[in-house]
């Protein structure tokens, strides 16, 4: 029966391993939910245009909003920005997105006014 008594170190190790397995299981669930959400958002955006029932200007705003929501799912769930130790990547991406928004606005403005 001696081999049934575990030393404290292996118990801690086992405990950590169970914690990690649970965390991974949770993560997999988040990935699946995120996938279903993105499929749904794509389908909604597709039908908003395909059905031709929504006014054009509203439809454009609507599908752009859906695209932005989808991107947040990608960045935060699939690219793990929600995980610990991602402060630097968040700043990198946020500044990239900021410059990107200014770039799109100014290029469109330049072409329109010319």
């Amino acid at each position: 029966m001696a081999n049934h008594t575990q030393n404290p170190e292996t118990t801690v190790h086992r405990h950590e391993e169970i914690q990690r397995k649970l965390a991974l299981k949770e993560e997999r669930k988040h990935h699946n939910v995120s996938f279903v959400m993105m499929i749904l958002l794509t389908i909604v955006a597709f039908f908003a245009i395909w059905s031709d029932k929504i006014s054009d200007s509203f439809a454009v705003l609507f599908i752009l909003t859906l695209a932005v929501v989808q991107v947040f799912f990608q960045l935060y769930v699939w690219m793990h920005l929600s995980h610990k130790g991602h402060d630097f990547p968040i700043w990198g991406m946020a500044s990239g997105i900021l410059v990107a928004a200014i770039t799109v606005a100014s290029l469109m403005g330049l072409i329109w006014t010319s």
Partner: protein
Amino acid sequence: MNAGERLTDANFPAHPEKATLEGKNKFLGFWLFLGGETVLFATLFGTYLGLRNMHLDGPSGEELFSLPLVFLATMLLLTSSLTSVYAVLSLKQNKVRSLQGWFLVTLLLGLGFLGLEIYEFIHYVHEGHTFTSSAFGSAFYTLVGFHGAHVLFGILWITTLLARNWNRGITLSNAPKYYLFALYWHFVDVVWVFIFTVVYLMGKVG
């Protein structure tokens, strides 16, 4: 420990992709690169948005685009993004065969996407929509083609990465490489979400 040594379940770190200084640097550097890529694609999107109605005598986006085809392409790429995140989950569990399997599925879906895009471009050229037919043509092929080139690059990247490391298991040296490829692939999907919305869906409402 040697970074090229096959990791075992006993010595497997919680974050193999960031367990070495090199891995940490790659991780930070790659995110900076993605921030820069965002700006690069923004220049192409801005130009396209400004020029998208200038199609001269050629067909307009509304006449050209076939939404069902693009919808199918979107689903392929979205699913490939999921399979690559599954590969990362396998990476975190030191399951190298399952990692290889999910990346192979990602690769196949990426090839499917690229095939659809090539078919689409050939079809457009026959309709008189070419790179030089109008400002709309140039802006369209530059933006969508540049994304397609990113998909092609990703396909070559994962093919060589898998082939080179096929029998090596997961090591501290290749874990960051697998991880970064998955980040890249998600980013390519992020860009496609905007191409699908801005180019194709918005193209249909004029």
